[in-house]
């Protein structure tokens, strides 16, 4: 990898160009940034920052929870999960008590988008 790409400001500029170029096509620039973030550790942080910087919905964040919290039925994807009152830093670990029928995610929004 070229040394210039070890400079975080340059990588951040590249990421912001990717966002600006495909601003009206979120899936495209999200996919490109996700691929860019996976190339190496040096690029991962600024690319993930750019990827997550603007979110139209909470759905992408909710999809970061444990995969077994998602279920499907009647053409919809349901999030069935368990919560306890604040115990750890990660919501995926907050599993206990009664299940809560918590939300609906539309089927066309894949978890990778």
């Amino acid at each position, binding site marked *: 990898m070229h040394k210039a790409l070890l400079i975080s400001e340059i990588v951040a500029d590249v990421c912001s160009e990717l966002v600006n170029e495909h601003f009206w096509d*979120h899936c495209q620039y999200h996919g490109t940034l996700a691929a860019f973030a996976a190339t190496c550790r040096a690029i991962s942080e600024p690319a993930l920052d750019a990827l997550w*910087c603007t979110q*139209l919905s909470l759905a992408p964040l909710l999809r970061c929870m444990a995969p077994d919290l998602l279920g499907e039925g009647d053409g919809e994807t349901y999030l069935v*999960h368990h919560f306890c009152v604040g115990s750890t830093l990660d919501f995926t670990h907050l599993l206990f008590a009664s299940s809560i029928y918590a939300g609906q995610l539309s089927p066309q929004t894949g978890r990778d988008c």
Partner: protein
Amino acid sequence: MLSYASRIKVLGRHIYEIKYEFTPQISAEVFRALSWSRPVPAAPLCPNLHTLDWSGLLDGTDEEEEIFGYLHLFLGPSVRHLEFNLYNADFTRMSIILSLPRNYPGLTSVEINDYSDNDDKQDGCGTISDAVCQWNQLELFSWSGCLSHRALIHLAGFTKLQTMMVSIPDVSIINWQAHLSTLQAPGFCALRKAVITCDQILSCASLIDITSPRQLDSFTLTVRNPPEAAAVWRLFQTLGTRCSHTTLTKITVHNSRYIHTQPFNPINEEMFRPLLAFSNMAVVNISFPLAFRLGNGVLRDISTSWPRLRALHINTMSGWGGQSQITLAGLIPLLSLPQLEELSIVINASVVDHTLDMPPTGVSNTKIRYLNLADSVIENEHSVAAFLSDVLPNVRQIRSWYPGEAAQNASGSFADAKKYEARWNTVAALIATFAEVREQERKAARKCE
């Protein structure tokens, strides 16, 4: 999850083209669960969030009332910009809104979307106005409901307020002067963009008269009641007196009615001239149910006073009441402005005062492709097209005599309006042909050389 949440800086920004296709609905249960499970109860879910478009985030949900209570999940010390809906707000939501300035004093930009009609808004006006009076650091405030006098004066006192989109109260009430005394001069000292709605145009003129918006770059005024010409003149004079002549570059003033209320009392050149003081004027858009009597002299002055003019639209929806004194030749200085790309005015083209046997104008505006000429009269479409193909060779569409009120205001018949409209359509078609012929001739001449 929290490691990703900390990267989010903008949440819920509403982009219409994307929103409906990709955004799933999140139920109130999800918000409730997130609220219960926060590791640190007072900590925001997204600690680095600076822009929260709550109305965009909840767009389409039928549980908005219940979810609104979870706004605090996202608000924290880093949030600067907040946008939310007020439509159909219940007592609980209004209480939460009223507590926002106390709990989140760091908010600098607040946009409130309100789609209710004026009667429904009355209930919320007091609450929002009270909330405004508690904020002290706002740089942007937007709300279509009517602010109280006290809230308006409080806004005027902000030293960092740059953008304001508000509806202002009537300033003729008796206690207005008492509120004025609380204003620490100069009012609106940092205001750059003002979008104001009011019932009477004089309310806005009076407000500007007691403040000093010297940084004002863009001024937009919507007047609910049709104004008189004298009141419009007063507004133009006040702008000329109170605003910086080099800073104000965009002005839009309009009323939504089309039927002229005072056909024998037009806006004349003297009333228009205060606006010529603004030397960097770029966009002028004026639309009132009033006749306009402007002539070639004003266009000549515009061409010297507004060298950076990009767009000029004067009363092209309701027309000028048949009182335009601008001729074809009068357009020449205006069209010499290098940045002019939009033009909507009324001309009297019944007399062609610049014919083909005269020396070339030397003026050719290639940026304008569309003209709106409202109630412009025309007799000979061929000679008019010959002139316009020289000075406006790229015009391909001319709109005129629309809507029907333009004919009514000009005291013309509907048949006359259709006749003139057809002639202008012919002119638009001829300009394209004539311009091509001119270009062909130029090429031939260059070859001969």
